[in-house]
């Protein structure tokens, strides 16, 4: 089903490409793709661009349907898509524009260790992390909560975890929305969603979710690194997870409901997976209330995962996590819809910004950025595949002007899971990773081959584009040491 797309893109400059509004009748705005010629070759291989054009049908969409350089074929929305709708002008919210894994996101913490300090303990560390941090399909954690507590998590997010002793106030300040987006409505979450979420707090999950111990192998911006307390060779940790079964259920419940909204509100979209409702409608409000609950659940989850990680480091290195300097650098969501103010054609507007596989990337001075980072801009964390690199960047003013303050979220898949499984030999891959000094532990052997580096675009190419286009600025690059996969 790898059908090549038929769209011809108009070149704006080396990193901006346009799908004209005239491409399909019904498009309300044009599509803008952030890519270079090299990445475009992969982007043309599937129907992701067609999906960028389809998103341009959404009522109230402003400026353009945007695609980040890690864009790939999703269902309904492309993965790596950004779309903002004008709430006062019938702008809609679409559960498909957020996806099933609501607030799937990533956090990065630092340590005071350098690679040489821990290289002899890496094997112990990878086994200990694998045993202490619950991972895998439907994994269940030791952090069990009552129904009443689960409601509390949905409102308080990371703060719930901090109150339980799983972190500090500092962690909250270094999390997007301080780890709890306002306006969560637990009564909008179905009983089934509660049931699915009950046992999964503090679990990593499966698929592309991971926990990695990394080391910084390249610095790009010394000033920003100093502000972040980062140095060449320093050991860092990255955690990628989401809202687990609770989020999937919220998306499913509302995607199902919103199919009926298409007729009710006379909305014409070319794909049912783009089902949506006006932000100001009862259905739109209910979805946003429930989505925020799932987002908060995900932040609490990543906070719990970080706590388990810190405890494991304490056990292996016989030191407190504070002494090891395991402070959170930042936590960003990359599947979310947010109500934000942005300037459109010189006028400030209240928008519903969908980031589906895209990271918020606010620039210096933005009041939503924690004070400690306000001078350099919001940290933007871009995980790559398990064999190459991950990046830390900072957001820019240009991103706020062009992309509603958004950037890419990862490397972006280029090969299907089935194709990757068919073409990758597990033992060869493990040996190859080992020769690069990377240790991998996974619950399912299948996950390792599905997630093989060759299944992804090179994150270095993706980050080059966002940096050169000016929508984020490179700070430093990490390479993996230990990888725990679900």
């Amino acid at each position, binding site marked *: 089903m790898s059908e090549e797309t038929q769209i011809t893109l108009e070149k704006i400059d080396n990193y901006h490409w346009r799908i004209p509004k005239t491409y399909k009748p019904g498009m309300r705005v044009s599509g803008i793709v952030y890519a270079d010629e090299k990445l475009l070759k992969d982007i043309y291989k599937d129907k992701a661009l067609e999906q960028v054009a389809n998103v341009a049908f959404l009522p109230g969409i402003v400026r353009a349907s945007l695609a980040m350089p890690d864009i790939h*074929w999703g269902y309904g929305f492309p*993965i790596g898509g950004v779309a903002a709708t004008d709430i006062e002008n019938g702008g809609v919210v679409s559960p498909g524009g957020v996806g099933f894994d609501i607030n799937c996101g990533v956090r990065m913490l630092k340590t005071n260790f350098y690679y040489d300090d821990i290289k002899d303990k890496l094997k112990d560390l990878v086994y200990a992390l694998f045993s202490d941090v619950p991972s895998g*399909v439907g994994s269940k954690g030791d952090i069990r909560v009552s129904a009443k507590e689960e409601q509390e998590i949905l409102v308080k997010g990371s703060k719930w975890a901090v109150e339980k002793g799983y972190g500090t106030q500092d962690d909250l300040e270094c999390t997007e929305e301080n780890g709890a987006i306002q306006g969560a409505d637990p009564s909008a979450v179905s009983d089934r969603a509660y049931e699915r979420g009950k046992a999964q707090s503090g679990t990593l999950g499966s698929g592309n979710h991971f926990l990695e111990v990394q080391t910084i192998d390249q610095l790009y911006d010394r000033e920003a690194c100093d502000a972040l307390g980062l140095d060449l060779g320093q050991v860092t940790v990255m955690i990628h997870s989401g809202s687990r*079964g609770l989020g999937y259920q919220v998306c499913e419940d509302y995607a199902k409901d919103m199919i009926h909204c298409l007729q009710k509100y006379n909305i014409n979209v070319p794909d049912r*997976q783009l089902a949506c409702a006006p932000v100001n409608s009862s259905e739109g409000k209910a979805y946003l209330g429930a989505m925020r609950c799932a987002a908060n659940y995900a932040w609490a989850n990543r906070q719990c995962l970080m706590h388990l990680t810190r405890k494991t480091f304490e056990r292996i290195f016989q030191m407190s996590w504070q002494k090891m300097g395991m402070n959170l650098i930042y936590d960003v969501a990359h599947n979310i819809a947010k109500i934000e103010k942005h300037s459109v054609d010189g006028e400030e507007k209240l928008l519903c910004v969908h980031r589906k596989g895209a990271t918020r990337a606010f620039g210096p001075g933005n009041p939503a950025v924690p004070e400690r980072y306000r001078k350099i801009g919001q940290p933007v964390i871009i995980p790559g595949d398990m064999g190459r690199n991950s990046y830390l960047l900072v957001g820019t003013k240009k991103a706020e002007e062009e992309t509603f303050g958004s950037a890419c979220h990862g490397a972006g898949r280029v090969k299907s899971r089935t194709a990757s499984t068919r073409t990758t030999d597990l033992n060869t891959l493990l040996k190859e990773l080992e020769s690069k000094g990377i240790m991998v532990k996974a619950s399912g052997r*299948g996950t390792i081959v599905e997630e093989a580096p060759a299944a992804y675009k090179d994150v270095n190419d993706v980050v080059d584009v966002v940096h050169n286009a000016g929508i984020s600025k490179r700070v430093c690059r990490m390479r993996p040491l230990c990888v725990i996969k679900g």
Partner: protein
Amino acid sequence: MKNYELIEHTADVGIRVKAVSLEELFKNAALAMFDIIAEKKFQSSGSPVKKFIVKQKADNLEELFINWLNELLSLSSAKEVIFCDFKFSKLTEQEIEAEAFGCDMKDYKVNAEIKAATYHQLKVEKAGSGWLAEVIFDV
């Protein structure tokens, strides 16, 4: 032999299922989905099979098909079972009532997580004298 084919999709995975009747189509699609999710272990814990009643309504056959698969995924995750058999008491283009038989997840090796069945490139249609369905899952 497997009663379905895999469809390749960049981010996700899909299936193509054929059947002689609509009931068989719904059953085969559900079995294929759980075949992707898990495989039975050789040794069973002997836990009894649990029966669940699944009732769904929709405006049309495609929606009904998606609702059916998503309800099974949701039940499977909430109740920690893998569905292994189904009996239909009612199946029209807009309504389904069935008994779903779930085996304890402990008796399975779980290989993959399917988040949901999607409308993306969905097909549920008559093909010759039988039926055909294609569905992409979010994994």
